[in-house]
């Protein structure tokens, strides 16, 4: 994809590593199979890490660049019964913060957004739909986010004017992490 950007437009200013997979079901750790662990790691961690590797290599040849990784509230705190997903999303924050420091003097800003359960297709199609009302009730706002509310902040995070923010993992969670 980086090659496509260069071939087509000659530069890569912004990269948003958003692709990810939801946990397939709610299970305690001792019942989680290795296939689930590998799947979560391969897509949600290595997918982001390999993306960053190629994006950063390109951005180093330019005056600047911005990377935004989509993590999760499950990356900031424990997420019971989806431990593999939580571990993977924690790893995304480790990549974000480490790389932010490595490339800070190269004008490559790298941040992550940590949404709480949001009513995207990934969630509404997942095995989690039965839990959504309960999850909403647990937030100070008593509701889950609409995708537009999260994207509004993603836009700010990659905005050219937002030039001093790097290495941050920002919760967009209806106040959940404040409580």
């Amino acid at each position: 994809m980086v090659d496509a950007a260069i071939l087509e437009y000659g530069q890569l200013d912004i990269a948003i590593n958003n692709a990810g997979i939801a946990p397939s079901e709610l299970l305690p750790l001792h019942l989680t199979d290795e296939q689930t662990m590998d799947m979560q790691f391969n897509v949600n961690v290595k997918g982001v890490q390999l993306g960053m590797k190629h994006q950063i290599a390109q951005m180093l040849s330019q005056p600047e660049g911005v990377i935004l990784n989509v993590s999760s509230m499950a990356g900031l705190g424990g997420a019971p019964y989806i431990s593999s997903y939580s571990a993977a999303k924690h790893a995304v924050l480790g990549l974000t913060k480490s790389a932010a420091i490595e490339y800070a003097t190269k004008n490559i800003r790298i941040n992550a957004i940590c949404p709480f359960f949001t009513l995207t297709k990934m969630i509404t199609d997942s095995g989690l739909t039965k839990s959504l009302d309960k999850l909403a009730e647990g937030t100070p706002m008593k509701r889950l986010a609409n995708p537009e509310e999260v994207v509004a902040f993603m836009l700010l995070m990659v905005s050219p004017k937002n030039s001093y923010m790097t290495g941050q993992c920002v919760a967009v969670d209806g106040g959940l992490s404040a409580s």
Partner: protein
Amino acid sequence: MDFTGKTALITGAAQGFGLLIAESLAQRGAKLVIGDVNVAGVKKVARDLCAKGA
């Protein structure tokens, strides 16, 4: 926010956050490279965005 002249790469752009951020950036002047494991889905997104002038 103006993204005119900026090139943005977005993974997982066939749906959800990826689709919405692609639309938002395109509306604000960015040039896009989008990908998704759902190839048919992301091709449709590309066609729709091009039809809107992206």
